[in-house]
């Protein structure tokens, strides 16, 4: 049953063994590639914790079957966005403003915001809130998250 699947993740070409081409991308990233940025939150595309970029667009990896992704498409995860030493401007702003509590949702917040800033360089508060309207945070970090995205927009 095992099949090989090639992907391009964080700039690297990788090939993984899978049993089911309908397995969501999230599990390939977390279990086959040992990435910790994209998180399992709902498996339903409702919360945004699993968000990654596919060709620059924010997508919910928990409801994206591997069969819909090909090796030419560029998958970027939170790890690929930046590192603690060289963070992406959005990551940098989140650190500066301490925009996390438990941090479980933060992957989605950053990936969604980074995608927003590629199309909207100077978003208003309302733009940011609308872009993040389908990303859930239970700790209540929203105020800082909006402020961090605004700061990143200023720095970008």
């Amino acid at each position, binding site marked *: *049953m095992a099949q090989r699947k090639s992907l391009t993740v964080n700039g690297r070409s990788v090939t993984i063994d*899978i*049993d*089911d081409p309908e*397995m*969501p991308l999230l*599990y390939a990233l*977390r*279990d086959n590639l040992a*990435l*910790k*940025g994209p*998180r*399992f*939150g*709902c*498996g*339903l595309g*409702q*919360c945004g914790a699993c968000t990654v970029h596919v060709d620059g667009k924010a997508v919910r990896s928990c409801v994206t079957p591997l069969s819909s992704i090909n090796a030419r498409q560029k998958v970027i*995860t*939170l*790890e690929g*966005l*930046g*590192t*603690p030493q060289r*963070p992406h401007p959005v*990551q940098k702003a*989140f*650190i500066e403003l*301490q*925009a*996390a*509590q*438990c*941090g*479980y*949702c*933060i992957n989605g917040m*950053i990936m969604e915001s980074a995608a927003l800033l590629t199309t909207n360089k100077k978003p208003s508060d*309302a733009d*940011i*809130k*609308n872009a*993040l*309207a*389908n*990303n*859930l*945070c*239970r*700790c*209540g*970090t*929203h*105020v*800082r*998250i*909006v402020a961090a995205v605004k700061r990143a927009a200023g720095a970008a």
Partner: protein
Amino acid sequence: MNIIPSRRDMLKGGGALVVSFSLAPLADAQAQGAAGAKPVVLTEVDSFLAIDARGTVTVYSGKVDLGTGTDTALRQIAAEELDVALSKINLVTGDTTLTPDQGKTWGSLTIQVAGVQIRNAAATARGALLDEAAKRLNVKREDLKVADGVVSAGNKRVSYAQLIGGKTFALKLDHTKPAQAKDPATHTVVGRPVPRVDIPDKVTGRFTYIQDFRVPGMLHGRVVRPPAIGATLEGVDEASVKDVPGLVKVVREGNFLGVVAQSEWGAISAARKLKATWSKWEGLPEQSKLYEYVRATKVFKEEVTGNVGDTAAAMAADGVRKLAATYDFAIHTHGSIGPSCAVAEFKDGKLTSWSASQATHDLRARLAAMFGLPADNVRCIYLEGSGCYGRNGHEDAAADAALLAKAVGRPVRVQWSRADEHGWDPKGPPTLIDLRAAMDADGTITGWESEFFIPQQTAGRFWVPLTSATLAGLPQGDDIAPGNVFQNSAIPYKFANVKTVCHRLETTPFRPSWIRTPGRLQNTYANECFIDELAAAAKADPIDFRLKYIDPADKRGIEVLNRLKALAKWQTGPSPQPGGASGPLAKGRGVAYVKYELVRTYVGIVADVEVDRNSGVIKVTHIYLTHDCGQIINPDGLRNQIDGNMLQTISRTLIEELKFDRSMVTSLDWASYPILTFPDIPEITVELINQPNAPPWGAGEPSASVVPSAISNAVFNATGVRLRSIPYTPGKVKAAMGGA
């Protein structure tokens, strides 16, 4: 094996203090713990602190960081007291072999209890280190200075590493008689907005949550819960999953059902495909009659939490105006964004459990009982999970993982689904509150009576039954544990006659547990709404009305309210607004106050709201908050926590309500249990009142407790309509306004 001191250096300290350093090297912390060498009792410095040969300090805390930043704050406390750079402080938390049992991480007690204990250990250690340094350097102790772990007097210097590095302190601690801590005026780390240690890794995907944790040879498990809470498993068709690649085993024990597979997706696929037949069960009350059910539930015992004067006489007195109201507060789920997860391994008759348990020491006892093991053969290790806000499913997942690991003889990771978490985490119980008051002709309150219908709490312990043990029929007891939900049923106001009674109910529809601010939230909600009702009836300003009845000796409470007036630019006057607002959008503001558990943290709040008369939608536009939790350890962490309390509790107040039918929870995802989202967040303005010379108190919960009443009172201020049933959904708002 034990670390055996090969030599003892006896040090004569101040007074009767005798210090012995054992010279055996500190082994790797985990290996050392496995050998049982490190003390974990609360009465030894070595339980809390170790300093290695490089001068790195390891702090051991039984209380864990649930996403609130306490890992950083506890480090600050230790760094401050020892005068060691923050970067040289390691922290080990929630490991039954290594960390002292400082109680569950709950009730806003991490800083207040664990932090103060760690401070005491550090102050005691520092005292001994200075004594030893004075001896070695041949100077007076009072002439010594400490900077970054180096003790010096003039040109003479010796480091902590040289003094103690790799050896144990062997010093006793008495937390009732703490060692002299540093003068707060000299603090350079405590009280500062130190950046959190975990955030850089969390925002770059480097942090290891329990959901990321893996051990060699690990398999993946999923639970298959019954479709009705009390259903019996009648049959399992194992053939239904025989084609799932990598399936290892279908595990059935009593009504517990689970699957184990080589891969996570294999386990998910098997759990989805597995066909099982269950009996019918319809033991839940009708949701539409929930509060009739609560009111009719048999009372297990009565608790009188406040009793002053004679309220019956006050109520019956001639000429008094009597007021009465009933408030209710819905059943809530914790709603962690990451569903519960755990890993377990049985090896050589011993169980190791990795989980996000907020009480690993308690969990160890529970797992030991469940599997008939001596507690020494169970080790529970904490890894941070998604924010839990109380006892969510984390310990149930730990029990699930252990049950599956035992069944397959391999380490197993269990990840709950979203439906598992929404459906099976223990719930914040429904709360019903009756209030009555008597007011004389001058508008003075002469009597206050309240009755709280809340579940009982099994005496002496706070054990939420482990779901898989219940389902599998394994030993564990049948406790009811909502937490100390009686708290804040008594009031901070000095009326002449007061009686507050908790009817502790024999049962409640769902397995209860504590969710952020348990009981204090619901009780403060009713109390602070009702006092607003009384203020309105007395045509008094609601802040002044409260100030009139707060004990004049309670100066910190009075200051919180006075500062709140200034912060919110409060315009004195009775509610609702004179003349009333017209038009589709009604605007108003409401106030609330709490003295947490009547013994600690003070909070005052003003909420500004807009009520859309056409849609019934309430929007909170601005929160003003004054907050006194004593000595502040990390003001930025505190502000972050307060933000969280505001937004989460606005969500709970306006939106959240667990839905169910007679068999099961039906709000099993975020569509059916929505929470507050970005477009609806308010501005938040917070004034922290630091008390550097006071003890540090909790801040994890208190500010949440005032949110629902502030919103309710603001809606009344805007519309003249009093809302008394949480959540304040548009339907309820419209219905209430239709009757107004």
